[in-house]
């Protein structure tokens, strides 16, 4: 067995209770790291704000995407996939999601369609599907998590973010009722500022609070390089000066791979 859904693709939802914690940065650069390592990777933008698309494609608002797939059963996945210069790295933008921006739908409304989407992704030969979700664990995001094999949770390293952890864990426990085989890969600390006591203190507090297996060892620093990469529509590892940042995401990838191993791991192309 390689995943929970018996598909050939492993799906990982990148989700958080709180917005603005670096989900999109983690999603883009982790997906790029996997793709660079030979894993055929599809990055899906399931956030109606379309941050992945805005980061990686200049015309993302004109492209059909994930939300169009949900709304229109006639749209095949092939029409949504945007290739990149890296052969193993493709993405699906969020699309024309305006109907969803006003508050979205109830939980369960899109579950069947998302499962169909993942089956189609598997059918296209992808090994890994990373899904960058909107903040919160309810509505469509809840459906994405319920349909996924695993979830990883970026968490901003600051006191307010840490205080939201109990709510996050409660929400995940409820979602696990609906998807008992959901593998919780853990919390990834983001925007860590080594020169700010409150930030490093929050990181230490989270590591003391949660079991070690629940927190990734790799931490994502707050770095202007990510803003520069986004401005140029690139993963940070593609920048000349991005070697160090790429190494961080490569380490995060290695951790994700080791956590997925008990479930059979990720196939490589």
């Amino acid at each position, binding site marked *: 067995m390689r995943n929970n859904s018996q598909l050939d693709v492993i799906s990982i939802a990148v989700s958080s209770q709180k917005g603005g914690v670096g989900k999109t940065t983690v999603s883009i650069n982790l997906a790029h790291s996997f793709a660079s390592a030979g894993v055929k990777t599809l990055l899906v933008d399931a956030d109606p704000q379309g941050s992945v698309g805005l980061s990686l494609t200049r015309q993302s608002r004109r492209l059909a995407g994930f939300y169009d797939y949900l709304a229109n059963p006639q749209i095949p996945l092939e029409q949504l996939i945007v290739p990149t210069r890296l052969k193993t790295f493709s993405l699906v933008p969020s699309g024309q999601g305006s109907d969803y921006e006003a508050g979205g739908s*109830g*939980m*369960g*409304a899109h*579950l*069947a369609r998302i499962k169909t989407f993942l089956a189609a992704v598997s059918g296209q030969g992808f090994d890994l599907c990373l899904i960058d979700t909107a903040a919160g664990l*309810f509505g469509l995001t*809840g459906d994405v998590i319920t349909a996924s094999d695993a979830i990883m949770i970026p968490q901003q390293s600051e*006191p307010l973010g*840490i*205080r939201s*952890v*109990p709510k996050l*864990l*409660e929400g*995940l*426990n*409820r*979602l*696990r*009722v*609906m998807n*008992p*085989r*959901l*593998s*919780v890969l853990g919390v990834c600390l983001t925007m860590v500022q080594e020169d700010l006591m409150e930030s490093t*203190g*929050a990181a*230490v*507090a989270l590591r*003391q*609070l*949660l*079991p070690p*297996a*629940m927190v990734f060892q790799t931490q994502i620093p707050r770095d202007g390089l990510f803003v520069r990469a986004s401005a140029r529509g690139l993963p940070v590892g593609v920048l000349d000066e991005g070697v160090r940042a790429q190494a961080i995401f490569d380490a995060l990838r290695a951790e994700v791979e080791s956590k997925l191993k*008990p479930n059979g791991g990720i196939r490589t192309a």
Partner: protein
Amino acid sequence: MDSIDTWLDPIEVRQLADRLLQPNFEPASSMASDGFDDGFIGYEADSQLPVAADSPAQRSQRFCDWAKQHHSAKGVFILDHEASVIFDEGGHGQFHFLARSLALAPRRVNASLEPVYLKIAAGMILQIIPFATAQHSFFLGLIISEAPDPAALSSIREAFSKVASISQSEV
């Protein structure tokens, strides 16, 4: 550190986290901790309603059949307080989390839970009726065409209380 810890209950957080790390987390089995006790004596007036000799599954199924006949329910499910499935005859899994969340959403400290409903499709609503006893609480979900009036709600509560062996005074 202290400024964070004062907001959190570390033991509760650790318990929640540990549960998430269990591989293949399984909710309670379909009939575990179902709240049916041995004191149930059946309901003689309506042969469709459960009787003492029934198993918990049979009692739930008979309640389901009763709700379909008397209230035109198109689907019935019963969850426990953690949203674990006690009974679901029609695969309404997509509504379980929603049902529990909706039922608990308006809850204030010491406030009783009230029935709520949500329109889920044209001409179809999800009616959620919370039940609670000293030992157990339940969320009864009914897929029906329109929200039941107070008399119908009372009738459903009465029938379900027979099923779950809950006296009306405890609800």
